[in-house]
């Protein structure tokens, strides 16, 4: 059993396809791993054990019958619980959707299943993906497998923790401002936020529609490329899905990038950045140099980080991001009103306004309420130009900064988050400090760029430290190849927290 869990998704796929091991065996092994560690981690909202074994048996039957088993044959994956599945529940970790049974399945999830993947269950998140620690879950906080007193990051904390703790071979997360990349960094795994429009949003419960993307969370770079090859592609059900066909990202992954030019945005290396993370990213730059890459220092002025009055950090990008995301959220979450599905207040409401207002007061958590109210405010008469429209203009400036940067380099190297994983409760008191955890990741969402988060080693504390590669739109293939170069050279890959073995 042990060794099955240590196989990468790619290795497991090959083992299942070649009949060396069975999908059922692998699925049972992962279900056992969940049994063992879940009480300490709480990564899952729902484990679909029976269905998973059923799926696995179908895959095994295909293999025995000599049918083409698919690129993810028998690979047990976990799905962030903000993607609709026609089986089980889809809750977004919100009380308002606690009993919601979607009548359909998200395109990305359907593509995984069509490729032979086995869906183990739905993972915990910050309610409606609003948060950076998974503490905003309406049900329970998820804990970091490296130290259960720490947060796994968020909002895809459940998926990142599950992958890190070997509770699944790989997982899907969603990323609106860093929700795949930051938990991946906190948990020592690989996570990709694809180019906006590259992966269908059909069936992804919307938070910030112009920013949301689904992406893979895996143990190594090759697995990330493997899953991405399966979920990427055009979907006529999503009007913002791009028509050009996606590449087989795995095919070229071991081809190093000749004369790779790596940009380092000087604004990112301020005193706001934890020294160990700064050192780790610097070391990664050195490693790339020794692989023949050239490092260019450049500037992303509108992603600058300032220390404002009272030492508080501030950033145009963070302000811009939260204005846009909250405005879209206030509209996207208007539908949760207790009429067509979801929670309805048990208190008697004799008029529709009371029914709405009580239902939403009961169903939403504090952070979701804050964001809905702020979004409503910034869109409301008299404030639209000062906030929302202003943010859209700054959004263009931020995107133009990247355009200039990529004229001088192939990819950008940056930290993922200003600090490693922090303690539960450490930042819940002040929403703003929590928002600043996204400082290095949100710009890519605003500009629609792909961002890859991968481990850059361990800090002295023994906690994983992440680094981020950001590329131009549709440069996923390049990102994978560049990431693989570092992974090979550094040997930093498939980091295993102690919890896995005890």
């Amino acid at each position, binding site marked *: 059993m042990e060794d099955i869990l240590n196989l990468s998704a790619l290795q497991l796929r090959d083992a299942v396809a070649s009949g060396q091991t069975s999908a059922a065996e692998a699925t049972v092994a992962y279900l056992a791993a969940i049994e063992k560690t879940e009480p300490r981690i709480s990564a899952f909202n729902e484990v679909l054990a029976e269905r998973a074994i059923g799926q696995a048996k179908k895959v095994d039957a295909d293999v025995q019958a000599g049918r083409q088993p698919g690129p993810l044959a028998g690979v047990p994956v976990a799905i962030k619980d903000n993607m609709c599945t026609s089986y089980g529940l889809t809750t977004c970790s919100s009380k308002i*959707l606690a009993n919601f049974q*979607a*009548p*359909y399945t998200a395109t990305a999830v359907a593509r995984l299943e069509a490729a032979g993947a086995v869906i183990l269950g739905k993972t915990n998140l910050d309610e409606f993906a609003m948060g950076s620690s998974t503490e905003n879950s309406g049900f329970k906080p998820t804990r970091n497998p490296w130290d259960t007193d720490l947060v796994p990051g968020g909002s895809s904390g459940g998926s990142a923790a599950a992958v890190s703790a070997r509770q699944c071979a790989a997982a899907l997360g969603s990323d609106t401002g860093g929700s795949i990349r930051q938990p991946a960094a906190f948990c020592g795994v690989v996570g990709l936020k694809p180019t906006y429009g590259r992966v269908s949003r059909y069936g992804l*419960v919307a938070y910030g529609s112009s920013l949301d993307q689904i992406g893979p969370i895996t143990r190594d770079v090759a697995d990330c490329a493997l899953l991405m090859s399966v979920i990427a592609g055009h979907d006529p*059900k999503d009007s*913002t899905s791009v028509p050009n066909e996606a590449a087989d990202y795995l095919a070229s992954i071991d081809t190093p990038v000749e004369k790779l030019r790596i940009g380092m945005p000087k604004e990112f290396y301020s005193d706001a950045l934890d020294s160990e993370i700064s050192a780790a990213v610097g070391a990664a730059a050195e490693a790339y140099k020794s692989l023949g890459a050239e490092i260019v220092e450049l500037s992303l002025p509108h992603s600058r980080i300032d220390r404002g009055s009272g030492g508080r950090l501030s950033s145009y990008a963070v302000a811009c991001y939260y204005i846009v995301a909250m405005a879209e959220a206030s509209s996207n979450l*208007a*539908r949760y009103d207790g009429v067509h599905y979801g929670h309805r207040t048990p208190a008697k409401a004799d008029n529709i306004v009371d029914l709405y207002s009580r239902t939403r007061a009961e169903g939403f958590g504090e952070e979701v309420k804050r964001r809905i109210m702020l979004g409503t405010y910034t869109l409301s008469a008299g404030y639209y130009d000062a906030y929302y429209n202003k943010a859209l203009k700054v959004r263009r400036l931020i995107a133009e900064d990247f355009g200039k940067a990529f004229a001088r380099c192939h990819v950008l190297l940056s930290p993922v988050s200003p600090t490693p994983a922090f303690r539960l409760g450490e930042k819940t008191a002040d929403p703003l400090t929590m928002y600043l955890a996204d400082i290095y990741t949100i710009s890519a969402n605003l500009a629609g760029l792909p961002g890859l988060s991968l481990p850059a080693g361990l800090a002295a504390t023994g906690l994983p430290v992440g680094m981020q590669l950001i590329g131009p739109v549709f440069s996923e293939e390049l990102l994978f190849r560049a990431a693989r170069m570092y992974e090979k050279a550094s040997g930093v890959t498939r980091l295993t927290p102690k919890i896995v073995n005890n």
Partner: protein
Amino acid sequence: MTETNDIVKPVIGLEIHVELATATKMFCRCRNRFGDRPNTNVCIVCIGMPGALPVMNKKAVEYAIKVGLAMNCGVAGFTKWDRKSYYYPDLPKNYQISQYDLPLSAAGHLEVPLPDGSIKKVRILRAHLEEDAGKNIHTAAAHTGVDLNRAGVPLLEIVSEPDLNSTDEVLAYARATQRLVRWLGASEANMQMGHMRFEPNINLHIIRKGRCYKTPICEVKNLNSFRALERTVQYEIDRQYAEWLAEPEGYSLDKLGKQNRGYDDSAGKTVFQREKEEAHDYRYFPEPDLVPVVVSDQWRESIRATIGELPLARRARYMKDYKLSFEDADALTQDAATGDLLDTAVKAGADAKRCTNLLLGRGAAIANEQGCTIARIGVTAEQLAELAKMLQAGQVNATAADRVFQKMVQTNQSPGSIAESEGLLAVTDTRRIEAWVDQVISANPQAVEDVRSGGKKQDKALGFLTGRVMQLSGGAAQPKEVQRLLRKKLGT
């Protein structure tokens, strides 16, 4: 009711919501169909379920452009979608996908025929696409039921400038719009099915002693019949004037601004709606789930090419080329198909006037019974043309033609063979007619005498004898031939 010397000028703008005749809804492929069992034409998109995404219906865009062009609007080269936020149970997402700052079409006008025969040019401010809401069913006493079959049906909102100055003008404009969208096939515009709803904005400009007073603008929502529209506008004109008379300084636009009122059909009056005052803050912002629509010149012109001749132009042509009366021309241009029937028959060589008489005579009567347009009663242009020609050639007389036309509705046999089998063909055989003539001459010596003696009685007597012969022939004898023979035999 106006006080002496007050000049009261109603100033009215009309918003018309038209449901487009697409097969599917605007953002999902559920059927756009009236009258089905509640909540059967619904899906994750039009119920607004989590994770659902809209995909724009191409046909809806094309119909909207077609109507815009027919209303002489400029069609935007670049147009986008916005979310309009308000909470109501018939609006599942609690926002309506609409168009805010970049409507599909704008700045047009419609020429509206008024009852007095004159034409009024009504300016169109804008025409934009949006999704319809569902229906709230109020039959239960204690609660409301929500049916989402209508939710997401494509809706064209046509907003006029405040160019209408009387109830008659408002009605004429509304009917002209109904005729136009039907003509274009863009909507069935069936009032019973809620395909058309009206939202008038009404106030008065009152001139007294050289000074102009403006009453508050009142908007009345969701009027779904011409009758309701008429009663509402008239009621508002009277009400606003009365309220202004009560306090000419207080009841003013500057002091009270815009008001929302609802129409109470049973009472036939409008009532102030305070709740609608709250939160008129729609928080419009660009719809992130849809991408812009760019209308190329070529796409726009290809749509323009499908418009063809519009009702007023065709009516004018009928009066000029076919020498038809205003009434006849107007009656034949209520819908496109009926006029097409006429034009095809005329092209086939039939006389326009004769075709018109057939269509507006028996044809209109049958259409009336069947409750459909004349074009739909089941007579083909070929049949119409042949029958008109037979009339002209005297092969059938008017009475016979009328009976043949009746038959043409049921069968697609040619009028010739119908007349044949029904024995309705005019008799041209001189010997048979001569026999009837001789019989009548011998049976009516007095009339014969009157004819022979000439003088003023002659014509009357000749007419009398002709009638008798026709009677005897059961209407089959050809009148011209009868007269010729009578004259010959009576030596006149």
